[in-house]
């Protein structure tokens, strides 16, 4: 079981990191998106510090939305999904491995970038750390919801906007928790409640969504 998990995981990582375009363009998109706000609002002043955590959160959500569409696109075209579905191993287990690889490839680079983005947006160190922590705990949920959306829309050609309509509302709870964590920090209290809840949402998504995604994929294959 573990061997096939690792194989699925590493082979997906190889695929992503062998083509620079695939992992680098979301990172650049994220940087530019945040920088645009910085330029528009002027890089100085209290205003920027107040809202930049939110800008970073929204930029993070949009970047993951754009990458979501491509999670299974290549696998579908190359016939990998058929082979996954025909493996004697349970499909949800293989999808979990793929989601984990996707999370590493899409979310982790953005989080590693956070110190630089934070400095660019003139955030204090404490806030940058909190941003990284909340993103780290919230991003698994974002990835998993994205996986579910991608499997549900896999048979639609050019599902981009539709995927947005489907997924953005689902991101709202995560966004609210991330925002209220930052606001708590402004009022000098440690936002333990929000952090715990973000972690709980992610755990719930990691345990349940692979099963739902596997079912969605099997239905899509039936077409």
């Amino acid at each position, binding site marked *: 079981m573990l061997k096939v998990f690792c194989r699925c995981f590493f*082979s997906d990582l190889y695929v992503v990191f062998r083509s620079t375009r695939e992992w680098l363009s979301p990172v650049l998109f994220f940087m530019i998106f945040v920088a645009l706000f910085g330029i528009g609002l002027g890089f100085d002043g209290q205003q920027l510090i107040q809202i930049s955590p939110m800008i970073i959160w929204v930029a993070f959500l949009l970047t993951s939305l754009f990458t979501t569409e491509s999670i299974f696109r290549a696998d579908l075209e190359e*016939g*990998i999904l058929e082979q996954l579905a*025909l493996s004697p*191993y349970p499909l949800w287990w293989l999808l979990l491995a793929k989601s984990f690889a996707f999370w590493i490839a899409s979310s982790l680079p953005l989080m590693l970038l956070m110190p630089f983005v934070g400095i660019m947006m003139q955030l204090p160190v404490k806030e940058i750390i909190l941003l990284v922590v909340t993103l780290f705990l919230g991003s698994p949920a974002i990835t998993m919801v994205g996986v579910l959306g991608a499997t549900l829309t896999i048979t639609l050609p050019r599902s981009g906007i539709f995927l947005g309509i489907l997924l953005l509302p689902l991101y709202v709870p995560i966004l609210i928790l991330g925002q209220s964590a930052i606001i708590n920090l402004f009022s000098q209290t440690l936002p333990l409640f929000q952090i715990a809840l973000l972690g709980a949402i992610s755990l719930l998504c990691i345990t349940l969504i692979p099963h739902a995604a596997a079912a969605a994929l099997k239905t899509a*294959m*039936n077409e």
Partner: protein
Amino acid sequence: MILNVKRLACYKGNKYLFRDLNFSVSPGQLLLIQGQNGSGKSSLLKILAGLSVPEKGKVYWGSDTIWKQRDKYCNQMSFLGHKEGMKRNLTPIENIRDLLIMAELPTHEEKMKQILAAVQLQAHAHYPCYQLSQGQRRKVALCALLVKQKPLWLLDEPFTALDKESIYHLQQRFIEHLRQNGMIVIASHTALDFIDLNDMITIVLG
């Protein structure tokens, strides 16, 4: 184990592609599914693989349906559809290794190289698949099938885009597989003249 199909029907695009289809494939036999484009060859193959659910009818593997014993059935079957199931950014060796591990099989690098060499792909074994032509990618997929050595093979147009030597070589391997009591189901619109007629069943759809 016998693959047995009873009263199978497939409904697509407001009409029945086929209805009341009955046949069985025993060890050592090859089933050739023929028919025009759009007659339901690929759909039938997908149903046999368990990828899609038929409108009516049952597919038995031994005494039970394939849906009841999915894991066991998947363990004894290889499917090669229109798409090769090869990742573009991985090398043929890596691709075959992935498929072997997913099929719960050990990975012998030597054996993989041997089989790749038999279809003139040894030079490409360590280059990513996007550098290969379509025919070469198909050959890699067929090599994976040969390395896996599952009893039942379900193949959709296995010889498209292949050169003559490779087709000949693969045909010999197919005959060998049948001799070892394997089963092959091929969907194709060209006739297969290399198989002994006693070992071959043909159904024509449409």
